[in-house]
């Protein structure tokens, strides 16, 4: 069974989207769950959205649609995650929208470095939290 875990930054970013006024981004959590529900670990690993691969791990910037706002994968959300090439383990690091008031155009390599650093820190301090994609 694939284990999905999250860092604090991801949870805060997702919550900010879910709480945003007029429910603009309220479909974000559903889009994440739809993208991973029933998907094999091989499908999660093999993705053309891969941005970095090293030492049995892959960092991926996944393009997600926003069905609620009728936006394609190109214009929807970006989910940054790590996936192990050995274990059935996935870590969500960040999510942001490509459109609207919280729009983010890209993710610089310095920001990826910061996200990885947060993951290492929280992993070493047992602060990572399980993310249930089945509900």
């Amino acid at each position, binding site marked *: 069974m694939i284990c999905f875990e999250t860092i604090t930054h991801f949870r805060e970013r997702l919550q900010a989207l879910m709480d945003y006024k007029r429910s603009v981004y309220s479909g974000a959590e559903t889009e994440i769950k739809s993208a991973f529900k029933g998907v094999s670990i091989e499908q999660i690993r093999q993705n053309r959205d891969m941005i970095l691969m090293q030492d049995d791990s892959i960092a991926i910037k996944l393009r997600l649609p926003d069905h609620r706002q009728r936006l394609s994968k190109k*214009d929807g959300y970006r989910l940054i995650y790590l996936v192990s090439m050995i274990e059935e383990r996935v870590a969500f690091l960040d999510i942001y929208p*490509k459109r609207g008031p919280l729009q983010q155009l*890209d993710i610089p390599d310095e920001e990826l470095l910061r996200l990885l650093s947060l993951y290492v820190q929280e*992993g070493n301090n047992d602060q990572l939290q399980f993310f249930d994609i089945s509900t």
Partner: protein
Amino acid sequence: MELATPGGYSVSQLSRLNRELDDLYELIYADWNTITEQDYAVFGGQFQLLVNTIKQLYDDCRRSDAHCQMKGELERLGMNYSALYELNSDIVNFRIKAPHNAELQSMMSKASKVLNR
């Protein structure tokens, strides 16, 4: 690819430009993570220029009197700018800079140890 000043741009022309930009995005995105530094040296300058030109056109059109008539296509143009900007940024950040970024590679190794333990 057709470029024009906002004053002389019809909705149908903007629509055609958007279709061409959609196709260009799909073309580059299909192979983006196999693009090498040498590849980018060939087309990167022109690609960057194109992205900047689309942004300029988008800003000019938004300020023009015909703004309301072309609202839908203008919104698509904005999305195409955003998509192509991101693609260019991903190529520069993760295909060209990342392999030379020792700090990023070291942190990825540390993250890998945590992920695989």
